C-alpha cells in the first residue's frame, strides 16, 4: 500500500499530520489526520486556586482566550452557586461579541478566505492576506486590519488585556465599564456592523457570483451528513455566550436539548492511539467509527453547526442573511462543509449587531457587577467559542482548590468530522500518484473550512500551511515529493 504523508514542515504542536493510504489501484483506501499535541491542562490545573482557572485556561489558546476565560468563569459561577448581576452578564456578553468580531475577521481574511477571494488554484504565494489585499485593494486591507484591532481593543477595555484577559470572577466581572469606554466601544461596534455588511457583500460578489465556487461548495467531496450542536437562547436563536445546548440530527430535527450541567449524559469521548486528540460522539448513538449518515453519533460544531442547530439569528441583518443562505443552498440543514465560511460571516454580522445593542444598553455602565460567591462545589460552564461548543467542568474542594477538571474544546468536538472531511476530499480528488498543488490545496480546504485550532497555534496564519507530500510505494520507496 502506498502512503501519502501530508506533513506541515514543523510537525509539532499546533499542526495536524495527514497520512493518506492508496491501495494497489491507486485509489484512496484510508486517511488519518493525526494531532501531535498535548499539554495536559486537565492534569496540572488540579491543585490550583479555583479563581485562577480563567487565567490558566486562557493559555490553552491565545487566539480564542476569551472563550476559555468565560467558559471557565461560567463553570465557577456554577461551582460557587452564584448568579452574576445582570450588568455583569451583559458586560461579559459584550466582550464576547467583540472577541467574535476579531476572531471571525481573522479567519475569513487571513486564513479561509484567500482560497475563495484569490482562488483555490491561484499560485500558492498569492493565496494569503497579501493576495487578498492585492485583489480587493489596499483600502480594504486597511479596513481589515482596523476592525481586527477594534475587536481586540473592545475586549481590552473590559478584560484588561485582549490576549489573556483577566476580568472574569465567579459572580461577575472585576470592574464596571466607564462611560468613556462605553462610548468608544459603541463607535467601534457601529463601524463593525458596516464592516460585516461589506464582508458579506464581498463574499456574494466573489464567491456566490462565481458558479465554479458554488459548484465546489455543493460538491459531494465537501459534503458530510452529520448531527449538529450549538447553544441556543430561549427562542432557539444562536447565542454565543449562554443558553441551552441543542442537538439536531442529519435532517435538522431536534434530538437533544440540555442544560450545560447535563453534558455527561449526552457526550462521550473515544481515544485512538495514533493521535493526542480525543473523539467526541453522542452517547445515545454510541461510537460507530468515522462514519456519517443516519446511524452516526458524530456531530459538528462551529458556525455552520450553530446555524443548522438554531432556528435563526437574534439580530435583523444577520437573520436576513441566514434566510438567504438556506434559500440559496436548498434549506436546512446545510451539510456542505465549505458553507462554514458563509455561516462565519453571518455570525460576524450578528456579533457586530449584538455588540452595538449592548453598547447602547443603559445598564451596561451599571456599577453592580459583582455578586458574592457561595460555598465551593462542582460546576459546568459552556460557551460557543468561535470554532464551536466549549465545555469546562470543574470540581472544587472545600478550600476552593481544583480537585477535578474536564475540558472538551471546540475543535475536539469537530475532530471526528474533520477527519472524515479530509478523507472524503482525498478520496474524491486523489487518484493515483498524480498529486499536484491544486489537489493539495483542495484537500486542505476540507479542514480549513472548520478554522481548526489544532493545539491552538495553527489557526493564526497569514496564508496556508506549507506542505510536503511524500508518495511511497508499497516497499516504502519514495516515488515522488510534492511540496510548496
Amino acid at each position, binding site marked *: 500500500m502506498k*502512503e501519502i504523508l501530508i506533513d506541515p514542515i514543523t510537525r509539532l504542536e499546533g499542526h495536524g499530520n495527514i497520512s493518506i493510504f492508496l491501495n494497489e489501484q491507486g485509489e484512496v483506501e484510508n486517511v488519518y489526520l493525526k494531532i501531535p499535541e498535548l499539554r495536559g491542562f486537565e492534569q496540572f490545573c488540579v491543585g490550583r486556586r479555583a479563581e485562577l482557572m480563567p487565567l490558566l485556561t486562557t493559555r490553552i489558546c491565545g487566539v480564542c482566550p476569551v472563550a476559555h476565560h468565560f467558559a471557565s468563569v461560567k463553570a465557577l459561577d456554577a461551582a460557587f452557586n452564584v448568579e452574576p448581576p445582570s450588568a455583569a452578564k451583559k458586560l461579559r456578553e459584550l466582550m464576547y461579541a467583540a472577541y467574535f468580531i476579531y476572531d471571525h475577521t481573522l479567519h475569513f481574511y487571513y486564513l479561509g478566505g484567500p482560497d475563495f477571494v484569490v482562488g483555490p488554484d491561484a499560485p500558492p504565494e498569492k493565496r494569503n492576506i497579501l493576495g487578498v489585499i492585492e485583489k480587493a485593494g489596499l483600502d480594504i486591507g486597511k479596513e481589515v486590519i482596523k476592525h481586527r484591532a477594534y475587536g481586540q481593543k473592545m475586549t481590552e477595555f473590559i478584560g484588561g488585556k485582549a490576549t489573556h484577559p483577566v476580568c472574569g470572577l465567579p459572580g461577575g466581572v472585576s470592574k464596571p465599564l466607564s462611560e468613556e469606554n462605553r462610548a468608544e466601544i459603541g463607535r467601534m461596534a457601529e463601524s463593525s456592523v458596516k464592516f460585516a455588511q461589506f464582508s458579506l457583500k464581498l463574499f456574494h460578489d466573489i464567491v456566490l457570483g462565481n458558479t465554479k465556487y458554488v459548484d465546489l461548495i455543493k460538491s459531494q467531496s465537501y459534503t458530510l451528513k452529520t448531527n449538529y450542536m450549538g447553544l441556543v437562547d430561549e427562542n432557539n436563536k444562536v447565542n454565543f455566550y449562554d443558553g441551552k445546548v441543542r442537538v439536531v440530527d442529519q435532517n435538522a430535527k431536534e434530538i437533544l436539548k440540555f442544560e450545560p450541567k447535563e453534558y*455527561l449524559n449526552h*457526550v462521550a469521548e473515544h481515544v485512538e492511539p495514533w493521535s493526542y486528540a480525543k473523539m467526541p460522539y453522542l452517547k445515545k448513538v454510541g461510537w460507530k467509527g468515522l462514519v456519517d449518515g443516519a446511524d452516526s453519533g458524530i456531530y459538528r460544531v462551529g458556525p455552520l453547526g450553530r446555524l443548522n442547530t438554531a432556528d435563526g439569528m437574534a439580530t435583523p441583518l444577520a437573520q436576513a442573511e441566514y434566510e438567504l443562505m438556506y434559500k440559496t443552498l436548498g434549506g436546512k440543514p446545510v451539510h456542505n462543509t465549505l458553507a462554514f465560511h458563509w455561516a462565519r460571516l453571518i455570525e460576524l454580522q450578528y456579533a457586530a449587531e449584538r455588540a452595538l445593542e449592548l453598547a447602547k444598553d443603559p445598564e451596561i455602565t451599571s456599577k453592580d457587577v459583582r455578586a458574592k460567591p457561595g460555598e465551593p462545589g462542582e460546576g459546568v460552564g459552556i460557551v460557543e467559542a468561535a470554532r464551536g461548543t466549549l465545555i469546562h467542568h470543574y470540581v472544587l474542594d472545600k478550600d476552593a482548590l481544583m480537585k477535578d477538571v474536564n475540558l472538551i474544546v471546540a475543535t475536539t468536538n469537530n475532530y471526528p468530522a474533520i477527519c472524515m472531511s479530509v478523507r472524503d476530499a482525498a478520496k474524491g480528488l486523489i487518484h493515483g500518484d498524480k498529486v499536484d498543488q491544486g489537489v493539495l490545496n483542495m484537500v486542505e480546504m476540507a479542514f480549513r473550512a472548520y478554522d481548526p485550532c489544532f493545539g491552538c*497555534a495553527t489557526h493564526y496564519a497569514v*496564508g496556508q500551511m506549507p506542505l510536503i507530500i511524500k508518495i511511497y510505494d508499497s516497499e516504502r520507496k519514495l516515488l515522488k515529493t510534492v511540496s510548496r
Partner: protein
Amino acid sequence: MNKEKLKIAFYWAASCGGCEIAVLDLNEKILDVIQLADIVFWPVAMDIKYKDVEAMPDKYIDICFFNGSIRNSEQEHMAKLLRQKAKVLVAFGSCAHEGCIPGLANLHNRKEIFATVYLKSTSVSNQNGVVPQPETTVKEGTLRIPEFYDTVKTLGQTVDVDYYLPGCPPPVKLIANAVDAIANNALPPKGSVLAPLKSVCDECPRKKENKKISKIYRVYEKTPEPERCLLEQGILCMGPATRSGCGAQCLTVDMPCTGCGGPCPNAPEQGAAMISALASILGLEEEKDKYSNEDVEQLLSQIKDPVGTFYMYSLPSSILGRKVMK
C-alpha cells in the same frame, strides 16, 4: 542608505498562539518590520519549508524569534536546528523564557498526565485503556506522532539563547522597542531581558501607603478600593516580584498581577522574591518578636497552593524546576 535587509524568522513550539497574535497586534507597525526585514521563515504564514531551513547555511538567519516551550521531541529538534541557523536567537514570550503556565505540568509526569487525560477523564469511554503512542500500526501502515516528554523545558534550557522578551504575551510596546533596537543596531549585551529594569509596582498608578496586612483575601472575596494598592488591601499581587513593561495592565481592571513578566532584574527567583515581599507586608520582617511561630504559620497558611501561585509562570526555569517523581 542602501543596507541589505535583515533576515528574520518566527517560530513557535509548545505555545498557545498568543505570541503570534501579539506580533499581529503591532497593527500598522508590522509594515515597518517588513520594510526593515525579509521574513525568511514563518511556518503557516509563509511558504518556506522545513527542508529549506535545513538547507540554509549556518547563521543565515539574522534574528529568530522563538516562542513556546520544549514539550516534545519535534520541538527539541527545531530549537536545535534554528539555533544553528540563526545569528541571534530570541526567546519570545513567557513559555520560551520561563516555561509559563503549561510549565506547571512539571508537577506531574507523562504517565500521570496520560492517565488523567485518556483514562480517568469523566467524559472518556476507554475500556481498553488506549493511550497515544509514538508509533501505531494500523492495517494500512504505520502512523507516527512526536514523543511527549516528562518535563517541560525552556528554550534556554535546550539551546543557547541571546535575548529574552518576557510576558504572556510580550507587551506590544516591548516588541516594538525590540524591533527598533534591531533596526538601529542598538541591542544590549547578550543575555539581556528586553524589558525595563523595573518592577510592575514601579509602573502601577495605585497608591501605596506602606500599610501592613494581617489577612490575605482571594480575588473573589473582596471588592478592592479602586485607587489603592491591592497588596495593601490584602489581595495577593505579584507586582513587587515581577518585571515591568506591561504598564500594569491587569491592575487597570482592578485585578492583581499574577507574574507573567517573570522575575525582576536583581531577584532571579521570582517565587522567593514574592515570598520575601509578602513577609515584609505581613509585618513578619520588622516585627519578628511580636509573632510566635504559630502566628507565622497561620498567616502563611492562608496562601493556598504556594507553588502554583508564586511559580505560576516560572516553574521550569526556577530552582524548583519540577516535582521529583517517585
